[in-house]
């Protein structure tokens, strides 16, 4: 089966005066597992339904394998979608649900039976073929919905929050199964989720949406390490943010942080030497030590900040501290090993972040 690319070019969609999608441009490569990540109301489901054909764009083009499919009705697109609610038909058996699309394609009866069984085998539900959907568990229903969609060999597979109705443990299992299935079939897959962990663990690449605008597209690691803006930084993982004015100070920079005061900052590749600066870093990039500890001179250029521990949570692998630095609250994760003592609330500490862990946000 030929793998196809999906491309959105300048797509805009509004309901009355509400703009739901604003100039969305994306290219999803053939065979890719692509995630659309965003908070609710970001337009990610709308975009997915637009690709399926249930929403119509006001502007822009939707290309499937290089061909504009904007005017093609959903039933003629050969794009498979797994619904958040699964949308299994209660009046049909599991087998009839799966066979539905094949019947629509006027396929011979023997062939339908063979392919239905194969699809049910694929999701491990062959013995449930005669059951009704409401006699299955949530995870099983999910698998039926998946089998029903892949059995028609769609060119593109769309998944609308497919795991959100499952409990946490099942979600992790299903996520791995989904990925394995996608790799096996090689179908271009677009996956909508509001859960960044889900997106990062499964997707080859992902797009972060907010307010109907694509904020950033890239691999999970790119988005995590190099967030393009504050929204992506805050939405993909936890991020600390410091803002202030910079000015040159010899070899280094003088960074006058709002509400904290001036600190020395190593020169950063993409930071201006003058003007406003927004600096971000991940909680686990912060090293925390007692206030009296001297700064390690061999550690290379770094940012150091004095602070006071405000609160802490023990999470097993690490402890998460919230440290007050001036008027800021800095979150820091400290790895936990047997014998490591927890630092008390109210203790004065020194925070340091290595220069290469600092990101300039634009």
């Amino acid at each position: 089966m030929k793998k196809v690319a999906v491309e959105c070019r300048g797509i805009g969609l509004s309901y009355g005066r509400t703009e739901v999608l604003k100039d969305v441009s994306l290219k999803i490569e053939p065979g890719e597992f692509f995630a659309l990540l965003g908070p609710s109301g970001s337009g990610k489901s709308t975009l997915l339904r637009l690709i399926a054909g249930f929403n119509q764009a006001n502007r822009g083009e939707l290309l499937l394998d290089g061909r504009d499919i904007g005017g093609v009705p959903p039933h003629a697109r050969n794009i498979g979608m797994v619904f958040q609610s699964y949308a299994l038909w209660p009046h049909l058996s599991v087998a009839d649900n799966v066979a539905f699309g094949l019947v629509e394609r006027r396929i011979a009866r023997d062939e339908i039976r063979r392919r239905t069984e194969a699809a049910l085998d694929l999701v491990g539900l062959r013995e449930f073929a005669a059951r009704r959907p409401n006699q299955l568990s949530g995870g099983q229903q999910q698998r039926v919905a998946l089998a029903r969609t892949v059995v028609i060999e769609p060119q593109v597979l769309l998944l609308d929050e497919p795991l959100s109705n499952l409990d946490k443990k099942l979600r992790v299992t299903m996520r791995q199964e989904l990925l394995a299935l996608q790799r096996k079939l090689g179908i271009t897959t677009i996956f909508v989720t509001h859960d960044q962990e889900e997106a990062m663990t499964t997707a080859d690449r992902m797009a972060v949406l907010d307010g109907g605008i694509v904020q950033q597209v890239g691999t999970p690691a790119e988005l995590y390490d190099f967030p393009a803006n504050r929204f992506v930084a805050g939405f993909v993982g936890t991020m600390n943010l410091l803002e202030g004015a910079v000015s040159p100070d010899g070899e280094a920079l003088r960074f006058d942080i709002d509400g904290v005061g001036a600190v020395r900052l190593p020169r950063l590749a993409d930071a201006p030497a003058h003007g406003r600066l927004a600096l971000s870093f991940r909680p686990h990039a912060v090293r925390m030590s007692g206030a009296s500890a001297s700064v390690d001179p061999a550690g290379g250029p770094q940012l150091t900040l004095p602070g006071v521990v405000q609160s802490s949570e023990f999470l097993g692998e690490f402890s998460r501290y919230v440290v007050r630095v001036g008027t800021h609250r800095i979150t820091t994760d400290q790895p936990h090993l047997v014998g490591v003592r927890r630092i008390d609330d109210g203790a004065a500490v020194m925070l340091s972040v290595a220069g290469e862990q600092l990101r300039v946000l634009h």
Partner: protein
Amino acid sequence: MSTAATGTAPAGAVVASLRRAWGASPGSLLAAALVIAFLAAFLLLPVGTVFVTAFADADGSFTLGHFSSFFTTSLMRESFGNSLYVALVSVVVASLIAVPLAYLTVRFEFRGAILIQTLGVLPLIMPPFVGAVAMTLIFGRSGSLNLLLDEHLGFTIPFMQGLNGVIFVESLHYFPFILMNLTVALRNIDSAMEEAALNLGCRGWRLFRRVVFPLALPGYLAGAALVFVKVFDDLGTPLVLGATNMLAPQAYLRITQVGLEDPMGYVISVIMIGFSILALWLSVRVMKGKDYTTVSKGAGGLARRRLSGGEAALAYAGIALVLLVVLSPHLGLTLLSFAQVWSYSPLPDAFTLQHYATVFAESGFMIRNTLLYCGLAALIDVAIGTTIAYLILRTRLPGRQWLDLVASAAIAVPGIVLAIGFLRSFQGLQVGGVPVTQTWVLIMIAYAVRRLPYALRSCMAALQQINVSLEEAAEMLGASGWRTVRRIVIPLMAGGILAGFVSSFITAAVELSATILLVVRESQAPMSYGIYLYMQSVAGRGPGAALGVLAVVLVALGTYLSHRVVERAQATSRPARATGGS
């Protein structure tokens, strides 16, 4: 795959832009056009004609003269007052029966609750005009009860004298509307509402008056408005009881005795529609913004408690009394159908099967007519109901809400008014040399129009319960619009459609007020007309009652069947997951 559906370029572009703008396919537009044509020809045109005639002078110019002569004629003023009085008092009496029963079922845990629910359906399966004769025999001046009272206690109660008879028969027939609506409303009250009041020290009667009843008020009002409209518009009961000094009988008498040209019939029609709309509008108006359906997930409505021994005995005694009265028309009718002679005695003197033999020999064609007219009418109703439901819930066709409004408005059009409108609008119209007003087709269409609101509500409810993603999934897998409707929508709606069919069918089977004007030959007569005809003479009462019993059995069977079907459909088609998409 994709090129097949786009078709030739210009046609494809039109289809695509239709989809884009209204979410409607050419097929659904055609269906919409057919529905509009039907409603325009058989509802708007006849009712419009009635209005125009009521306000038109002999030369066609606008006049209020007919209305002023209506209000200066003392018989008309009296009829108007009587109709209003009967409708209002019937609502009060029906409430007195229904409110305690509803409260009992919802509030207490006892077996009588099932009894009350059955009670709620029993009166509806017998048209009031059929029961009226039997009621006269039991509660009339020389009926069973008064004969016994007179003999043993020396006094009688004028249950059936004059308007009392109409009120008595109508409230016994229509109280289930209040009972059912109020029961549902009470069940939908979250127990937390009640607990909060209890917590603040409000209990007993005060709890009912200050919290429970106000929360259930929308349900009560919906039922009460319906009772008012039904009683105000009823023709059969006053006619059978000889209370002709009311509006509907006056309209009937004017049209049949003075003629189709007499403006008074039209004036009465306009007044009847006006009051029906007013009552329904008031109930909606009062309810506006008061959807108190407060029951949240898992909460099971008001807390129930067990009745103590004494309370239970009292409740059962009350229910038994109501049941006895409610069943009296059924009992009376059955007795009458088997009675050789029943006059001036508490019970018939002797029993016979002769009346049933007469009915089968003379009136088999009436049963056939009923099945034919009502079957076709119900078919039209579910077809239109499904179409309107689909257009409203699944397309963005501009003005689609009007279809619902117009089709539902049929409920405010009394049968006699629709019939008058038909006669006037289609007067002189011939199809293939046969005058339209002489055919049974018009009777059938009148049934379809009048019962459309019932079928429509059923179909709307059925489609509303289907999550749109069930249809989208079918489209996704390659089913076109019509294929999706056929393979997914209709099977899932089947229960609702069948329930709509049955409720249209059974209510049409006992409809008299349009029938009585539209039947021109005896060979066209359905059962309802036959019963009325038989009941006109004392000798015909026996066969009339036998035919009535058959009609009741037919309606009861239909009601039971539709209940079973709906329950089964609900059990098998419960959605796999209730959660919706984002």
